[in-house]
């Protein structure tokens, strides 16, 4: 789980430069969420962790924080 979080944090830090992102911080509260970033995030999660994010997983709540993404990855990989 911790290793996954490191990867997620690293990916997100490329989008939120100059911001020390906390694991429970709402990334959607930080700025405008555009469709490009949304797609990149989903593609990253699928590619990096080898999971398929289904329609029902595509909920903001599953992508809102580093913690939430890590939980989703763990659930899907199980």
């Amino acid at each position: 789980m911790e290793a996954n979080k490191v990867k997620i944090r690293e990916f997100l830090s490329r989008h939120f430069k100059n911001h020390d992102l906390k694991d429970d911080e709402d990334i959607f509260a930080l700025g405008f969420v555009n469709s490009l970033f949304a797609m990149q995030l989903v593609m990253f999660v699928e590619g990096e962790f080898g999971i398929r994010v289904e329609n029902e997983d595509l909920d903001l709540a599953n992508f809102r924080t580093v913690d939430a993404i890590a939980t989703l990855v763990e659930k899907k990989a199980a």
Partner: protein
Amino acid sequence: MEATQKTKKKDDKKTIKCVVWDLDNTVWDGVLLEDENVILKADVVEIIKELDERGILQSIASKNNHDDAMRKLEEFGIADYFLYPQINWNSKASSCEQIAKLINIGIDTFAFVDDQPFEREEVAFNHPQVLCLDALNLDGMLDLDVMIPRFITDDSKKRRQMYMADIERKKVEEEFVGPTDEFLASLDMTFTIDPAKEEDLKRAEELTQRTNQLNTTGYTYNYDELDEFRQSDDHLLLIAGLEDKYGTYGKIGLALVETGEEVWKIKLLLLSCRVMSRGVGSILINHILQSAKAAGKRLQAEFLQTDRNRMMYITYKFADFKEVDKQGDLIIFENDLTRLQPFPEYVNVQIG
């Protein structure tokens, strides 16, 4: 007119979006490797110019030395007509594939012209959807139904130049190190959203027919239907345009909203794939959300999933839309309008 009755009818209107040309004995008489003094075929040049006027893109798949062939094309003054020319020793099937990928359109909208039966068969074998034409028999090529777009709009005439500007942008983007927002800000973009006017309708129809990936339902509407929506009190037909420091992208977005008594419903929302990486789709959605909220209505959206429009599903979900109903393949989303985002800082938004 009842918009909910519309169904997908894309395939019966397929037209060619890109023609890929061979060079030796196709665009010119002779084989460049054997004799430098090849002779440009005047009738082919006429075809190339006419296709360009119609907004059909063109490229090259030729087995030749890249630099020699490009120099020849420049000498003939026709190099600029071709996007991403593939002049190498790869199979022409793979060259066509590469062009489709670089332009970002489906290979099923391609035509391929070559004088060699072997090359045509090799392309046809790997990509049966590609229309293969014999370069020695091009009479009537321009009269083929698939070579005649229903409308030729200002945007289609400028299409090649807009793709050229895209190539320039991509180069700069690849070299840019830093966060996406910063890059987007450096483009100096202006995004416009306006109610569609009569002169926008041809382009609007073209957009409903050409756009597959960034399209929430794939409903196609013809000119007259769109003209009715435009003037109807129960509909909002919005057209969006984008320009940046490299030039204009033209009109690249369309949204049709059914404005009911209590509920507004987005029937169609689409964006040209050329603006995929510009983050403007969310702005168009946000504008509709804000308008619905200001009008005191609920806001729903229809969505028809295809194998190509996942990005729009994600766009809706990440814009806080929730699935509230499903009728077969048709998903009904609703946004409760409690979390509206301001427009991003990297683009200047103008609402007409």
